[in-house]
C-alpha cells in the first residue's frame, strides 16, 4: 500500500472570513422562518459557550439544560460511551435531561437500506425536537450520524416548502408544534468547548500518551460548514474536533495520512457485509495509524466509528495484521482523565480490543478496578441491589 505524505499548511495562515463563506448560514433562514410563524426556534440556553466553525462563523454550545438525544448504537453496544457523557455532566453539577420520550433518528437504517423517505425522516427529527421543547431542555446529539442527518433535515425543511408543510401537518396530528433549535449541537462540541474546565479537574496524567484521532464522516462531511475548526489546530485545514480536547488533556496527537478516510462502517456493511468493514478499518485506518504514529490509543466521537475500529481488529489478528490499538470515545478519555472508574463509568468491558496496557500506562490498577466492578455485579446477582447507581459509580 502506498501512503501519501501528510501535507501540512505550515507556512500559510488560514484566515476564515464568515462574510466570504461559500455556503449559506442556514441559521439565518431558520430565524427568518420563525419570524414568518413557520416554527418555534428554541434558543441555546444561557450562559452558552462559543466555538468557531469551518468558515469562521460562531456557533453557540449550551453548558447545561441539555436534552440528551441518545444513540442507539452507543446505548446498545458501547454503553460506557453515553454513560461517560452523563458522568461529565454530573461531575460539573450541570442540569441535564436523559429522556425516555426519544426515538433514535432512524438514519442508520435510512443510509443502510433506504426503507424510509425524507418526509418520515424529517418527522422523526421534528418529533424529537418537539419532545425536548416540551420539557424545556435544549437538544444535544450523541450520535454523529444523527447530528449530520438532522442538519440535512434542517436544510431540507428550510428549502423545501412542500416538505415543511407535510411535516407540519404530521406534527399537528401528533399534537406537537414544529420546532427547530437555534443550533444543532453534537456532544463532542460540548466536550471540546468544556475542555479547559475538564483539564482543570484532570487527576490522571496523560502527557506521556500518544493518540490518533478519527474524525467521524457524518460529523465533518455532512453539512461541512457547521463542523468546529480552530486556527491553532491543523492550521484550520481540517476539523479540530476531538484533537482539541485531547491536546487540552496533554495528550500528544499524532497525525497520519489516511485521517480523511471513513472507518469502514458503511451502515449496511457493518451489519450484513462486514468483510468490507473489517478490511477497510484495519488496512486503511488501524494499520496506518500503527505504522505512522505507534499510538497508545485511537480516539473518535461517533457510534459507528468506535464500533467498527474496535470490533474489526479481532478477526484481523488471526491474519497477522498489525492490530491491538485500543479505541475510545472522547467522552470516555475526558471522564477517565477526571478520575472516572474504567469499568463502572467507562464500561470498558463492552469494548473488544484489549485496552489494559493503556490503562496501566496511565497508572490505573486494572485488576483492582475490575474487582471493584465485579463486586458490584455480584451484589446484583445475589439480589442485594437492583442496579449499579450513580452513587456507586461516583464513589
Amino acid at each position, binding site marked *: 500500500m502506498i501512503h501519501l505524505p501528510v501535507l501540512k499548511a505550515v507556512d500559510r495562515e488560514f484566515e476564515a472570513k464568515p462574510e466570504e463563506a461559500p455556503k449559506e448560514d442556514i441559521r439565518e433562514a431558520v430565524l427568518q422562518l420563525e419570524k414568518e410563524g413557520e416554527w418555534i426556534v428554541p434558543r441555546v440556553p444561557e450562559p452558552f459557550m462559543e466555538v468557531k466553525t469551518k468558515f469562521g462563523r460562531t456557533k453557540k454550545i449550551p453548558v447545561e439544560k441539555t436534552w440528551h438525544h*441518545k444513540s*442507539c448504537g452507543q*446505548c*446498545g*453496544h458501547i*454503553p460506557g460511551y453515553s454513560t461517560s457523557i452523563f*458522568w461529565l455532566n454530573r461531575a460539573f453539577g450541570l442540569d441535564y435531561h*436523559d*429522556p*425516555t*420520550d426519544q*426515538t*433514535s433518528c*432512524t438514519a*442508520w*437504517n*435510512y*443510509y*443502510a*437500506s*433506504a*426503507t*424510509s*423517505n*425524507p*418526509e*418520515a425522516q424529517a*418527522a422523526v427529527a421534528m*418529533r424529537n425536537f418537539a419532545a425536548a421543547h416540551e420539557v424545556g431542555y435544549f437538544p444535544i446529539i450523541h450520535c454523529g450520524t444523527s447530528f449530520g442527518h438532522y442538519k440535512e433535515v434542517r436544510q431540507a425543511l428550510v428549502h*423545501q416548502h412542500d416538505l415543511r408543510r407535510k411535516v407540519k401537518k*404530521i406534527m399537528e396530528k*401528533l399534537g406537537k408544534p414544529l420546532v427547530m433549535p437555534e443550533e444543532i449541537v453534537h456532544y463532542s462540541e460540548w466536550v471540546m468547548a468544556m475542555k479547559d474546565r475538564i483539564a482543570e479537574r484532570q487527576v490522571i496524567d496523560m502527557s506521556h500518551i500518544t493518540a490518533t484521532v478519527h474524525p467521524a*464522516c*457524518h460529523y465533518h*462531511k*455532512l453539512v*461541512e460548514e457547521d463542523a468546529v475548526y480552530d486556527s491553532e489546530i491543523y492550521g484550520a485545514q481540517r476539523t479540530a474536533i476531538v484533537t482539541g480536547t485531547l491536546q487540552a488533556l496533554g495528550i500528544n496527537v499524532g497525525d497520519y495520512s489516511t485521517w*480523511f478516510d*471513513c472507518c*469502514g462502517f*458503511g*451502515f*449496511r456493511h457493518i*451489519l*450484513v457485509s462486514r468483510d*468490507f468493514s*473489517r478490511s*477497510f478499518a484495519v488496512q486503511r485506518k488501524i494499520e496506518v495509524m500503527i505504522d505512522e504514529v505507534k499510538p497508545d490509543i485511537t480516539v473518535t466521537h461517533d457510534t459507528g466509528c468506535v464500533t467498527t475500529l474496535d470490533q474489526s481488529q*479481532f*478477526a484481523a489478528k488471526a491474519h497477522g495484521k498489525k492490530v491491538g490499538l485500543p479505541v475510545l470515545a472522547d467522552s470516555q478519555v475526558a471522564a477517565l482523565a477526571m478520575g472516572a472508574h474504567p469499568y*463502572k463509568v467507562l464500561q470498558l*468491558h*463492552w469494548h*473488544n480490543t484489549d485496552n489494559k496496557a493503556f490503562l496501566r500506562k496511565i497508572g490505573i490498577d486494572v485488576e483492582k478496578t475490575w474487582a471493584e466492578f465485579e463486586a458490584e*455485579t455480584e451484589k*446484583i*446477582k445475589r439480589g442485594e441491589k437492583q*442496579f*449499579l447507581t*450513580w452513587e456507586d459509580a461516583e464513589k
Partner: protein
Amino acid sequence: MKQALDLSYNKYSDVSFEEKERLMEEMKADDRWHHILYGCYECGICVAACPSARFYDFSPRIIAQAAAREDADLLYTLMNDSVWDCSQCFSCDRCPRQNSPGQIITVMREVAVKNGLKTAKEALEGYGRIIYKIMATGSQVSPDMLQPNAFPDWGGHVKEISDNLDVWRKALPPETLHTTETGWYVTDKTIIELYLIWHMTGVMDLIKGVDEGLHMILVDVMEERLEEAGYDDVNFD
C-alpha cells in the same frame, strides 16, 4: 471480492427501455435531485475519496456521470449492480462541482426499494431483523442483538457480553439504560407517535416492497399497539 462491474449497453435487456426511463424519471422527480447533481467534471476526486471504490469495482464518478447524462440504461444497471456497495460516508461530497454522489445513490436506492427490484431485496437479505427493530422499537440496534452467531468475526467477547447481558445492563448507572431489547427505555406514547409517523408517511409500503413477510409481522405488532392506544382507525393496508 465481487466480480467486475459489467456496464455493457442493455445488460438488462429483459427490462424495456420505457421501464428504465420511468425509474429514471422517478429519481429526477425527487425534490433533492437538483440540489445534489449539477454535472460532472470527470475529475475523479469523488473516487479518490471513496472507501468503497478501494474494495469494490465501484465508482461514484460513473454514477454522477450517468445521472448527469440521464443515461436511463446505464442508471438501471448501476441501480441494480452498484449502488448497494456505497458506504454512505459522503466523502464524495468533496466534489468541486458540488454534486453529492452519495445522495444521488440514496435517491437511487429509494427508487429501487420502492419498486421492489430483485437486487434491492438481495442486498437487504439478512437485514430484515434490523428493519424490524428500527420500525417496531425506534432503535436500530439493541443489547440483545449481541449474539455470537450474529457477530462470529467479533470473537469470544460477544459471547461474554451475551452471557452477562442482564447483569451488565443493570450495572449501568443511567437508569434509562437498564434495558436489553432496546438501547434505552422508550415510553409507550413515544412508540405510538413513531408508528403514526410510519403510517402517515407511507414507509410501510416500502417495507412491503422488499419483504412482504416482514411487513405482515410489523403490521400486526403496530396495529395491535395502536388499537390498545385508541387508534382503531389506523390501518396499514
